[in-house]
């Protein structure tokens, strides 16, 4: 921040300023929207079937008929990538939304109740934090067997604590404020105070975390599938597709495009999450 930036008035137009701050977030939102649409409209828009095996056509490079080429079994990579979006997006949403709901509720209640409930919650989350998510998810998935549902369960176990922690810290900030005391003295029950008074003030950072975590969940699930623990073949899934194409350095398209799909989706969610965070940040507003 040079002296000029502080002293001179901001001459940039309001629109340009909005673009500079929220341009990336809009781009991210557009990317996510595009993928959601693609996933929903897949069966109608795609020319090829993702599971149609045609070994005579295997490992063909990208062409006019197969925009992303074909894989080792002759399946159209573009179709598999778009269908993979359905799996990844739904898994991401299920894991994050359920984990967020469960974790937030737990964390908020524990923080409001205080005492041993809060301590117990902290120790429980500490315990889960001891494990890097991939290792714990791996252990559980290996225990329950591979398959989408089991992997989702494994991910849920590791996903709720961070929301619980965040919700707890947010409720702690709020619970000693005067409006809470006022509500209590008027006679509102704890459930009402928590849900209708405290949570609306605390919900901002939680939304940021949910958005960012949607991308993270997709990454983790793709990683587990890459290791062989996620989906069961022949379900198209981005991580599994990269695993299939791992050895095929010459046939780069088999592994590259699914990975690019993951990259763009996660970047989209990250942009949106950052944008929401900037929007909520009181410091940023005053500049």
């Amino acid at each position, binding site marked *: 921040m040079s002296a000029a930036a502080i002293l001179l008035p901001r001459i940039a137009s309001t629109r340009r300023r909005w673009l500079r701050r929220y341009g990336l977030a809009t781009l991210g939102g557009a990317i996510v929207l595009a993928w959601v649409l693609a996933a929903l409209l897949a069966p109608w828009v795609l020319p090829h079937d993702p599971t149609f095996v045609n070994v005579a056509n295997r490992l063909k490079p990208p062409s006019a008929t197969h925009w992303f080429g074909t894989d080792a079994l002759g399946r159209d990579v573009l179709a598999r990538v778009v269908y993979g979006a359905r799996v990844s997006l739904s898994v991401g949403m299920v894991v994050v939304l359920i984990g967020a709901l469960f974790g937030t509720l737990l964390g908020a209640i524990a923080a409001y109740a205080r005492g041993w409930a809060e301590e117990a919650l902290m120790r429980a989350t500490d315990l889960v934090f001891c494990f890097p998510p991939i290792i714990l998810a791996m252990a559980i998935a*290996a225990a329950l067997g591979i398959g989408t549902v089991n992997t989702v369960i494994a991910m849920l176990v590791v996903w709720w604590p961070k929301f619980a922690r965040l919700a707890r810290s947010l409720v702690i900030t709020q619970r000693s404020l005067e409006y809470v005391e006022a509500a209590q003295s008027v006679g509102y029950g704890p459930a009402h105070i928590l849900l209708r008074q405290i949570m609306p003030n605390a919900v901002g950072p939680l939304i940021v975390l949910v958005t960012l975590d949607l991308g993270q969940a997709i990454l983790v699930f793709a990683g587990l599938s890459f290791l062989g623990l996620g989906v069961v073949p022949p379900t198209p899934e981005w991580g599994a597709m990269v695993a299939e194409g791992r050895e095929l350095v010459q046939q780069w398209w088999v592994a590259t495009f699914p990975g690019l799909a993951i990259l763009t989706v996660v970047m989209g969610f990250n942009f949106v999450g950052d944008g929401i965070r900037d929007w909520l940040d009181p410091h940023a507003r005053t500049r």
Partner: protein
Amino acid sequence: MIRYVISRLVTAVVMVLLATLVVFLIANTVPGDPAMAALGDMQASDPVQVREFRAKWGLDLPLWEQYWMFLQRLAQGDLGISIASRRPVLDDIIDYAPATLELATIAFLLSLVIGLPLGIIAAVRRDSWIDHSARFISLVGVSAPTFWLAFIVLAIFYGWLDWAPGPGRLDPIAFPPERITGLLLIDTALIGDWETFHDALAHLVLPSIVLAASTLGLITRTTRAAMLDALNQDYVRVARAKGLLARVVVTGHALPNAMLPVVTLGGLAYANLLTGAVMTETVFSWPGLGRYTFRSAVAVDFPAIMAITAIVAAIFVLVNFLVDMSYAMLDPRVVKK
């Protein structure tokens, strides 16, 4: 202060034990049976052989007894015998750990060396092109799947351009040095084998870049956010008003206050790297802890899984502990109550 340290240590030990208990319980509700997994098909169909196997490995004892035996051995430093490799787990881990330690440390240093300055400059010159490119790079690093990045990097720099060597720690024809620490760079330097040193270093380049990518993103973002916070504070305004050099204000006043969240997340990131990056190690055929963990999980190798869990939990707890201690150094307000 001493009381604080001791109470944290006790909590840490309890955490580690609880972690092993949790994994022990999970591993024992597993449908997969280590006996079936280790014996061949023919042997597994013979109930007598299966029973003998289970008796030999103590698998027929009640759960709490198995756990108690595990704890006793742990107290003596014995991590048990791996069902899959028939060697003491400790030996297995000593074999695999240095590879991960070397890779993780170099990747972490790389991300620090690039990420810290990048984050600082991005904060100081906010909304400039440097800021935007730094944010973009860090976002890509955080969003790209590690296993995919590893493949891309390998395909481009090894498969296509042939600038870097292939997977593995050394060339297949290279002669590994005598094992002193297990860390190739140190071992080869100690005996003066510079050719192998060069080879090991070359093999380290690609995997460290891949591992560093996501950590770099994290460090840059955290540093930038923390620096922005610090630069907005009143004391910075005072320092500028006093006429101090910009460099002094940034590095001497703002930076130390911004370091707290960076140290926290950086510590966590290092611990994550240490506990073995399974993806990168798989793609680069790196014989490290990550792959060992994965293989043990798939083979339902109880002793190995328990031992690895204990170690992973211990590493995380240790790193958290060190981070907490560093708070006291970085921010004197933490110590004064």
